[in-house]
């Protein structure tokens, strides 16, 4: 879905999200959080990649651009991937990253990949999905990286068969990125079981890891405490203290 949202599109940092509401969904009060997949700063537009889950996403799927439906948004919200502020390779040295996107979790990693590549860092991408047709971000990643991302599908219709954790383990066991430099960090977004396994593997191989967590959110501004994540430092808010957390901080 492409939306016009100049403030969000211009201000967005990789990992942040927008909190959207459809005024025509009268009986459904709450805003829905969505990551930004691509942002066109000049046009003031951005795209959101979404999966059909419930009534809100079903409503989105039925929107017709011709009717120019109204969407209300708060954003950009939340803590970005820490790698988003990394200086360019020229200034601070070249680093390697492993980005792991499960399902629609591939979306919020794309802006990060773009940023890292543009700053001259090395990026390996692992994508997992249920089936080939769900690997909607693959081509865009391939165009960005100049080579195919590592892919796995549950049903084996594209890439490796099964969970993409196998591919992640391979990369982490290799200890370094495709171009040979050791990983500075793993960044994961996807279903919680996937993030957990990747976080465990990263810790086992001593690579720092960040995860992007999903929680139901009411306010989206840090006020209501609906979206908490358990951490050793107590409960933290996914909306403003996250959604990106250091994997070590998360008590799953």
């Amino acid at each position: 879905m492409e939306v016009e949202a100049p403030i969000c599109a211009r201000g967005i940092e990789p990992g942040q999200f927008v909190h959207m509401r459809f005024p025509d969904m009268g009986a459904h009060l709450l805003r829905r959080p969505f990551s930004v997949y691509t942002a066109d700063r000049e046009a003031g537009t951005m795209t959101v990649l979404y999966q059909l889950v419930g009534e809100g996403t079903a409503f989105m799927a039925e929107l017709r651009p011709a009717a120019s439906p109204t969407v209300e948004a708060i954003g950009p919200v939340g803590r970005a991937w820490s790698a988003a502020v990394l200086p360019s390779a020229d200034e601070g040295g070249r680093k390697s990253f492993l980005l792991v996107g499960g399902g629609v979790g591939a979306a919020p990693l794309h802006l990060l990949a773009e940023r890292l590549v543009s700053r001259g860092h090395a990026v390996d991408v692992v994508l997992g999905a249920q089936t080939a047709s769900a690997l909607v971000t693959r081509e865009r990643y391939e165009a960005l990286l100049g080579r195919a991302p590592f892919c796995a599908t549950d049903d084996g219709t594209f890439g490796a068969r099964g969970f993409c954790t196998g591919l992640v383990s391979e990369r982490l066991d290799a200890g370094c990125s495709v171009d040979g430099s050791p990983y500075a960090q793993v960044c994961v977004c996807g279903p919680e079981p996937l993030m957990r396994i990747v976080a465990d593997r990263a810790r086992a191989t001593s690579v720092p890891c960040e995860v992007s967590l999903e929680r139901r959110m009411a306010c989206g501004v840090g006020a209501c405490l609906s979206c908490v994540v358990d951490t050793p430092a107590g409960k933290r808010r996914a909306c403003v203290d996250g959604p990106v957390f250091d994997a070590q901080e998360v008590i799953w």
Partner: protein
Amino acid sequence: MTEASGRRVPRPTAVDLSVNVGGLRMANPVTVASGTFAAGREYHDFVDVGTLGAVTTKGVSRHGWEGNAAPRIAETPCGMLNSIGLQNPGVDHLMADELPWLASVGATVVVNVSGHSFGEYVEVIERLEDSPHVHAYELNISCPNVDAGGMNMGCQVASVTEVVTRARAATARPLIVKLTPNVTDITEIARAAEAAGADALSLINTLLGMAIDAERRRPLLARVVGGLSGPAVKPVALRMVWEASRAVNVPVVGMGGISTAADAVEFMLAGASAVAVGTANFVDPQATVKVIDGIADYCERHGIDAARDLIGALEC
């Protein structure tokens, strides 16, 4: 796409919007429902919190609580359930970090006080008496309470009387007692709170509710049961405000599903001296100031000079 942006302030008006709630002077009748606005700072990008009639803070206990497990919210038809469980970092944190900020933006401050025992309420108030930045207390008596055998103390006359009496003795500041709607007879509880020394009442807190994911056969909240709020509860809230305000002589702060100025006017006509915007902040972070402006519009349109003339002015 519409983007919420800019710090909205109420527009100028010739209407006198000020109200007095049991000694608490408010520049306009609009405060926020505790727990939906934190201590205001998170909403200051959207509205100037210093311009609200008052900021009512999230419930605070003596040493803080962890609250319940997530998921803590669920959407329901025209409403939502929450089971936050009064998570808060304790009164000392509020005094150190939040009250000075609220004072710096010129906010009128109502602190919502929680406790798991009667004594804890008193302790929280005693700490807060040291702060010059508190203008009133709101006692959230809808907490499970050890002294009341783990029951919700807001449901029994005896425990309401006890906790209000003790809180009253601890402060000379305006004391608002916040009632739970989960009772057979709201007027009985309202009268008990008044008799025990409340300067004002506020209602309603959330209605107990539950939501289930049929496909997964599981409750949508980790705690199974939570508190219902939002437009869905408005008719129940209006009815209770009407009943309670006729049963007591102290002013009433009305809340429960208020989203628009028309909603706010309805509560005032039913007997509320002020109103609180709660869940609507999540829907529109500028809802508070829009409600203030809309009350002014209403008064101007109907030739009403002072918003307080709306209080209890229902014709029936």
